[in-house]
C-alpha cells in the first residue's frame, strides 16, 4: 500500500533528521544557533561507520558518532561562547570543516564493509496492521529515537538541568544572579546537541545506507535546522516534522517504484516547498516562540 510505504519510509528516512533536529533544539533552547549541524552529522556518519568497521560493533560506532559530533560542536561552543564569534559564520565554517575532515579521513572507508544495524521487528507490535509496518519494523537506532524525543521533552520540562538550560536560552542574566555560569550551561548544550547530531549521522551510515561516502548527509543537517524553527523549538513537534520530511523524501521512490509517471524534479523540491509553506502559514508565530536569548542573536552576540 502506497500510503503505508510512504509513512514507513518517512520514519526510516526521518530518524537521522530527527536526531539532528533534537540536537539543534537543545543548542537553540540554550540560546546558541548551530548551523554546523550538517558538519556534526557528517562527522558522526564517518565516525560511526569507521568505528563499526574497526571494532565490529555498530553500537560502539553509534557511541563514536556521538563523541565526534560532540567534539566538532565543542569547537563551535568555544568560538561562540568563549571568543564570542558570530554564530552564523562560525556554524557555516564548522559545516565546511566537517566536510573537509571527513573527505580527508573518510577516503579509506569508502566501499569498505562494516557491520551495521539490521531491522528488528518488535514482537506483537510489528504485526498490528499499518501501525506495525510504519513504526515497528525498523533498526534499533530508530527505536532509540522514539524514546529520545519524549525524553528530551520531559527533561527540559521537569528537571533542574532542563530548567537551567531553558533559562540560559531565555534570561541568561537571571542565571548570573543565582550564581550559575550561563556560558558553561550553553557550552554543554551545544556539545550535547552536536552529539545528538552525530548519532543521527551514525544512524544514516550504519543503519540506513550501510555505507560511508563523502558528503552523504546531503543537506539533511540543514533540513534539521529549518525544522527546529517551524517546530517552534518543541521536541515532539520536531519528531512530527522529521517524519513529515522523511515522508516527503520517501514519496518520490515510492511512486516511481510503482511506475507512476511523475516529475522527479518537482518531487525533489517537495520537502523545501513544505518548509516554505509552513513558515509562510506560521509567519511571525515562529519567531514569537523563539527563546528570548536566541532572538538577541539576530541583533548581536549573546551575553557571556
Amino acid at each position, binding site marked *: 500500500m502506497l500510503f503505508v*510505504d510512504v509513512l514507513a*519510509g518517512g520514519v*526510516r*528516512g526521518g530518524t*537521522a533528521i530527527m536526531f539532528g533536529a533534537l540536537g539543534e533544539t537543545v543548542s537553540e533552547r540554550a540560546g546558541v544557533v548551530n548551523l554546523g549541524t550538517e558538519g556534526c552529522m557528517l562527522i558522526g556518519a564517518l565516525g560511526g561507520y569507521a568505528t563499526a568497521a574497526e571494532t565490529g560493533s555498530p553500537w560502539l560506532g553509534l557511541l563514536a558518532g556521538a563523541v565526534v559530533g560532540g567534539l566538532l560542536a565543542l*569547537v563551535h561552543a*568555544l568560538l561562540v561562547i*568563549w*571568543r564570542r564569534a558570530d554564530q552564523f559564520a562560525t556554524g557555516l*565554517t564548522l559545516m*565546511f*570543516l566537517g*566536510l*573537509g*575532515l571527513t*573527505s*580527508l579521513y573518510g*577516503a*579509506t572507508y*569508502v*566501499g569498505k*564493509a562494516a557491520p551495521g544495524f*539490521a531491522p528488528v521487528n518488535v514482537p506483537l507490535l510489528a504485526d498490528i496492521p499499518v501501525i506495525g509496518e510504519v513504526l515497528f519494523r525498523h533498526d534499533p537506532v530508530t527505536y532509540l529515537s522514539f524514546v529520545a524525543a519524549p525524553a528530551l521533552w520531559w527533561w527540559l520540562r521537569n528537571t533542574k538541568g532542563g530548567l537551567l538550560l531553558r533559562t540560559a536560552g531565555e534570561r541568561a542574566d537571571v542565571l548570573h544572579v543565582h550564581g550559575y555560569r550561563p556560558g558553561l550551561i550553553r557550552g554543554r548544550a551545544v556539545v550535547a546537541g552536536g552529539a545528538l547530531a552525530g548519532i543521527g549521522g551514525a544512524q*544514516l*551510515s550504519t543503519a*540506513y*545506507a*550501510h*555505507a560511508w*561516502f*563523502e*558528503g*552523504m548527509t*546531503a543537506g*539533511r543537517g540543514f533540513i534539521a535546522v529549518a525544522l527546529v524553527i517551524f517546530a517552534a523549538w518543541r521536541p515532539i513537534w520536531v519528531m512530527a516534522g522529521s517524519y513529515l520530511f522523511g515522508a516527503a*523524501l*520517501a514519496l*518520490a*521512490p*515510492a511512486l*516511481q*517504484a*510503482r*511506475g507512476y*509517471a*511523475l*516529475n*522527479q*524534479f518537482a518531487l*525533489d523540491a517537495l520537502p523545501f516547498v513544505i518548509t516554505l509553506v509552513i513558515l509562510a502559514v506560521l509567519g511571525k508565530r515562529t519567531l514569537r516562540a523563539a527563546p528570548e536569548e536566541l532572538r538577541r542573536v539576530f541583533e548581536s552576540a549573546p551575553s557571556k
Partner: protein
Amino acid sequence: MRKIVIFAAAALLATACSANTAGTSDAAAPGAAPAAPGKDATSVGFIFVGPKDDYGYNQAAYQGSQVVAKAFPDLKVITAENVPEDDNAARVMNSMIAKGAKIIFATSYGHLDAALKVAAEHPDVAVVQQGNLITGTPPKNAGTFFGTVYEPVYLAGIAAGKATKTGKLGYVYAFPISQSIDNINAFELGAQSVNPSAKTYTVNTSSWCDPAKQAEAAANLLKQDVDVITQHQDCTATVIKATEAAGKYSVGYHADASSIAPKGWLTGSQWNWGPLYTDIVKTARAGSFTGSKYNANFRVGYKTGDNPFVQSPYGPLVDAGTKAAIDKAKAMLSTGSPFAGPITDQGGKVRIPKGTIPDYETIEKIDYFVSGVVGSLPKS
C-alpha cells in the same frame, strides 16, 4: 584555543586545496609554430571529477592513468582529483600544462567546455575528453573518447532476465542523461531477449551519490517484488547491500562488488581504461594525433575493438545456460547492436525500424525508454 584555530584553518585549507594540484603559476605556452599536439610529450595530465578511490568511475579512470605510467616509464603522470566541472577545470589543466604536460585527459562528462577552451589556448597540447561529444568538427588537438557502455549492460540484462522469478527488475539511476537512458534500455532489451515478459522498474535519485536516497529507492523496489536490482550511481554499495540483505540478486556497475554480495551477485560491468589511454598517449607522442581516430568523437565497442567497459565476473548463481546465452549475445554484438531494430518505445511506436543497426552516435542520442521499461524520464 589558538591551536584549535590553527587546526581548523589548516583543515579548511586542506579542503580548499584538494581540488587543485599543488599549483605553480600559469605560464602561457610559448612557441612560434605549434608542434604536433602531444608530440614527444614527457608529461601527461589527468583530471578527475571525484576522489581517486570512490570504488567507481573516478577510481577506474585513475587506475587507467597508472597503467599509462607503467607503460611509459619515461613519462611523468600528473593527476588531480575532485576537479569541478567548471572554469576551475581549465585552471587545473593550465597549471598542468605549465608544468610541462603535453597531453591532457579530462575524464568527466562536464569537463568538455573547459577542455575545449584549454585546447584552443594551447595548440601544441593534445586534449582528450572522456564521455562527452564535441559538436561539429573537433579542433586539430582535441577529441572525445568512450566505450559503448551499454553493451556489457545488455549482457548483464540477459543474466538478470534469466535469474528473475517475479519478472520484475529494478534500475536505480541518477539523472536522465544519455548514458543512463542507453544503459536502462539495453538492460531491459537484454532481459527481454531471454525473458520476453521481464519489466525494468526505474527509480532516479537526482544525485550521483546520496546513499540514503539509494536505500529508500532499493527498499521501495524490493517492496514491489523486484528481485534483481542494478544501478547507474557513482557509489554503489548501499543498493547492493540492501539487495543482498533481502536475499535478492545484484547486477553491478563501475566495479566488481561481488565481495559485498557473495550470494546474490550475478554479474555486472566495469571499466578497464588502461589499454585505450595507453594507445591515445602512444598516438599523441608519435606526433600523429591530428587526423587520427582520437581527433574525433571516438567510440569503441565489441564491434570495433577492445571495449574499455567489460563484463564483471559471474556470481555463484549464474548457470551454464545463462553463460551460453551471454556468449552468444557477445558474438552477436561483434557485428550487431543491442539496439538493432525493431526497437519500440513505451508508447508502442517503432523508433528504430527492423533490419537497421544504428551507429554509436544515434544510440547516444536516444531520449526515450523502450517498451518494457516502467517509469518516465524526468523532464527538466
